């Protein structure tokens, strides 16, 4: 085998391997719709939520699960306040995803990715999460209840137009969040779960 033939063979093999790997990764992405990693999801949430910020800031009250998951506790913080209610909904959900500043528990995992927000004239907010939310969620009756009501109570407490919240997964109505809590109807805020400032 001459030196020239060897070079050509090597080059062809290298290109074939490279091309195969590239096409394989393209096919994988096409078939499996790989979602972005945690960071990119976060970045997208941030970008989408904060883009319409009007420069105005607002003191808002957020509900987080208590350390022992016995109920909800509140935290107040000043944050950029969007001009429209759907964008404010995104901002609040993003703040819940980012988590508490004190030693409370996170209601939503960092992987939570909100696909769409709709606010209907009757005051129902539709929160459409991707299935990524299930990856970091601690399943359980109590923890799922607190996850749902941390969103419902936080949204209703800060956005007067929000009367109830309907949660969707991947654009569809889901039976339960992660095997326990009924998502077939919309939720109204529930103050019985607590909300003392801590």
């Amino acid at each position, binding site marked *: 085998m001459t030196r020239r033939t060897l070079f*050509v063979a090597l080059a062809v093999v290298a290109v074939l391997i490279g091309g195969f790997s590239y096409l394989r990764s393209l096919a994988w992405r096409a078939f499996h719709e790989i979602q972005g990693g945690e960071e990119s999801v976060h970045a997208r949430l941030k970008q989408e939520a904060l883009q319409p910020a009007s420069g105005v800031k607002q003191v808002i009250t957020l509900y987080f699960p208590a350390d022992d998951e016995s109920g909800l506790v509140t935290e107040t913080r000043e944050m950029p306040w969007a001009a429209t209610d759907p964008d404010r909904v995104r901002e609040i959900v993003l703040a819940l995803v980012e988590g508490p500043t004190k030693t409370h528990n996170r209601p939503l995992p960092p992987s939570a990715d909100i696909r769409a927000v709709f606010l209907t004239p009757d005051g129902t907010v539709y929160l459409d999460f991707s299935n990524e939310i299930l990856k970091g969620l601690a399943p359980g009756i*109590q923890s799922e209840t607190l996850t749902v009501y941390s969103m419902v109570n936080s949204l209703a407490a800060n956005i007067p137009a929000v009367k109830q919240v309907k949660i969707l997964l991947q654009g569809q109505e889901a039976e*339960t969040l992660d*095997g*326990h809590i*009924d998502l077939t109807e919309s939720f109204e805020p529930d103050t019985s779960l607590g909300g003392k400032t801590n």
Partner: protein
Amino acid sequence: MLFLTLNLRLSTARLATAVAVLALLLLVWRPRALRSDNFVFYSPHGHDVVPAQMIGREEYLPLIQVLNAVGSVSGWQEKQKSIVVYFGSVHVEVHRDDVKVKVDKRQVVLPAPVRVSNGQWMVPLSFLQLALPKMVPQQLNYRVGSGRLFIGDVSPASFTVSLKSLPGGSRLSLDFTSAVKLKTVSQNGKYVLFLGDHPVEPLEKSFHFQDPYVTDLTFDDQDGKPKLIVTPGSLGLNFYPSEAADGKTLLVDLAKPGTALPLQGTTSAQGSVSHPGPAPRTAAPAAAPLPAGAPSKATNLATANPATAPPEPTLPAMVLDPGHGAEDSGARSRDGVLEKDLAAQIEDRVRAALLAAHDYRVVLTRVGDTNPDLDARDAIANVTRPVAFLSLHAGNYGTSGPRVVVYTYRFPAPPALLPVETRSPAFVPWDEVQRSHLDRSRELAQALETQFATLPGVATSPPQEAPVLVLRGVDAPAVAVEVGSLSPDVDAGLLSDPGFQERLSAAITQAIMIFGRGPAKP
């Protein structure tokens, strides 16, 4: 470098072609789900095991192996897209990806096409019914979905199963249509009963029991050796198989250690007494010993053989719902304890205690590691018109110690928005059916919480209301009990301790007994 670039340019056309072919391959390629089930061909001279393979949604068998199992292949002519196999006095011709099969000059159309996989010509299972009978003189006996085919004079035995509770244990009775030879071994905590060489065609492949001593009986002949696998209700039970009626009846006694075996007189005892593989642990059945000689009111029967002894559902039903199951393992602790297992362990203990008390028959929404959907669980409960429904869960309560919380259903929307009063009481919607039971559900929750409060070292809180979906469709008082903390941040600790589980189960049983006495008087 210049030299290499030049050569690359010269071969651009070839490269482009190769890449295009690869791209096409990738687009056309679909992953195939493979399964390694076997298909067994029983003939008067023995048996042949042929591996089956799932291609797409169809189950396929290799053509040559099938024909060799049924008769003798004398040769074949293979082309790129077809094969002609010479089999006895006939020849059979099949074409790749074609549904038509030619047997001599007759044509048979199969519901699924012939495939080629790993160089083997594969025919769908329907080939056995539609084409094979035209190729062999013998009679073929094949029941769709059974995974076995009987050739010629082979007449398989069948059997019926019944389960009887006896003092200190349970007895499985298997009545065969022809005699079997018994050989027993224990493997991985289960007992395997080899039934000899005679082929067996069971009416059902597996039987599930609601019994503290035996949970499952499964038939298997994937390797051509018919056998029954008995799954005991807990480890450490004594096992006593025996034959009766000249080998036509098989009796299998499972009993607590210390119980005299056999449980009642048997005609002969050719089996062996053995313990399952792992060392016995403390998880003996929690049932109190039954009074000697007392007739058992709670007789559980396999659903497979209602004719042997008709069920007598005289006792009120109590439904236990161990949450999750199968692939849905629920919450998980740092040391790997799964919610589905914990729920099943607690259910097991509560069930044993309830059966021992003889006040209820216990209905389970899942048996073993399965996961019926929530509607199915509710349906199982509702058809038994139970006294109550108890769903068992474990969840995250942070890093706190053992905690038990009882939940009743809370409708996400307030009742005022859904005026049930105006609806016909004869047709209550499925998702509204729990509303009329909420008061009694709260009473059950209170009874449970009162009992839990007596457990040392366990934190409790007043019964709570939450939209726990599995409770919504239950047409009876229904509660969910969640123990914690089962969280990825902490070990399960006491939750997986048999002593703790026993105390918790006793408290649940006690609360059910108190609740069952009737509504609280004002």
